[in-house]
């Protein structure tokens, strides 16, 4: 049984169909990539899974149980944590306090200090989070998510603001993190090098519909994906 099972989900905003009967799964321990053009519905899918949005149709199951009757504030208790595309830290709070919020959500199963050592931010723990460089803020978000001891981690464009060398390190780090924290990872990312190097499977969305699914190599060779997303010389 898949750990996460998104089944036939449709989400509309007025006349716009952001997700149109989308289904995909993530097996326990997998790193699953979710890619697609801008406005394809990737972040909307994250928002449905974390219950910020209620789908108009379809079902979302986590570990065999429906998430649709779980309020957004309780999703973290089920073992789901996320980062945000545009960084949503608590501004004006220290790095440590931000990470503590994640820890407190799950009654301190993980020590925030340990997580900060793990992501190599411990020396910055008393700094105001909103003053840090963008890439570092993304790492604080990651630490906050890890502190809630998740089983499923949703990463929304983690490579944003990182140089080539740092993206390579991030790829290694995501795989290491999966092993050390026994995670299943759902990854939205435009940096194809990163997706190709870490994902076990990739789902491709376009205009709210799933247009392809497969291993990174399969997806990269898919004509429809090249036309909709990668471009001819990618």
């Amino acid at each position: 049984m898949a750990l996460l099972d998104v089944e036939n989900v449709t989400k509309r905003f007025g006349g716009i169909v952001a997700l149109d009967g989308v289904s995909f799964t993530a097996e326990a321990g997998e790193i699953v990539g979710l890619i697609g053009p801008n406005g394809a519905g990737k972040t909307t899918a994250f928002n449905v899974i974390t219950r910020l949005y209620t789908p108009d149709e379809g079902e979302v199951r986590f570990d065999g149980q429906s998430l649709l009757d779980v309020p957004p504030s309780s999703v973290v208790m089920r073992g789901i944590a996320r980062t945000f595309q545009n960084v949503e830290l608590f501004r004006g709070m220290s790095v440590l306090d931000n990470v503590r919020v994640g820890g407190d959500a799950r009654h301190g199963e993980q020590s925030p200090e340990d997580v900060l050592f793990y992501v190599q931010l411990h020396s910055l723990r008393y700094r105001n989070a909103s003053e840090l460089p963008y890439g570092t803020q993304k790492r604080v978000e990651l630490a906050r998510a890890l502190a809630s001891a998740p089983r499923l981690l949703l990463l929304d464009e983690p490579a944003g603001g990182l140089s080539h060398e740092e993206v390579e390190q991030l790829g290694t780090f995501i795989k290491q993190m999966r092993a050390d924290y026994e995670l299943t990872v759902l990854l939205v990312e435009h940096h194809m090098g990163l997706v190709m190097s870490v994902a076990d499977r990739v789902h491709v969305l376009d205009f709210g519909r799933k247009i392809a699914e497969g291993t990174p190599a399969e997806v990269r060779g898919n004509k429809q994906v090249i036309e909709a997303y990668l471009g001819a010389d990618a």
Partner: protein
Amino acid sequence: MSALLQLDGVEARYGPVKVLHEISLEVGRGELVAVLGANGAGKTTTLRAVSGTVRRTGDIVFDGSKLPRRPDAAARAGIAHVPEGRGTFSELSVWENLRLGAYTRRGSVKEDAQHVFEYFPRLEERKNQQAGTLSGGEQQMLALGRAMMARPKLVLLDEPSLGLAPMLVKEIFDRLERMIAQDGTAVLVVEQNAALALAHAARAYVLEVGHVVVSGPSEELRENESVRRSYLGY
């Protein structure tokens, strides 16, 4: 003729932390110049120093006169800043955001808006939609479009590829080149996709912990061993 923008010994700090050390750089009229560097190198702060959105010391000369240290003065002088993370007005519509881009100048905005819509047809489709409901990539387009509305002499672009699909990233840089050719706009761009930035920029500066460590024409930097290893990955 002298450079459009000239920084001489510019320094900036956040509280006790000094993040820029004696930065000197210049951008010619109609020139595309890139700033590269790892997360935390001071790239974003360099742009903020120019637009006056961070406290700074040192001299900045723009268009022949000393640039005052106030953001509104920089905007009126013809500098448009597209910040990292977009900074669109999320409660306002797409159209209202674009109109605000033209706030510092007189005359009709319709023609300029049409110009923006040619670049980004998606924005015309979503003209009356609240900016906060756009997808991440669409907000990036809006931030760029808003800057174009000011008919700036210089655009400061912070990570324009952030959150954009691979195909669109290429398009953005093609459009920047068109903008430079048609309107003579100069661009100072911070970009994590160094290969792309160096393919389009005439010159580039590489920052490390707040210092300029290498600078020169793009083709020279592409041959530079350390630049290749850290930023290009081949």
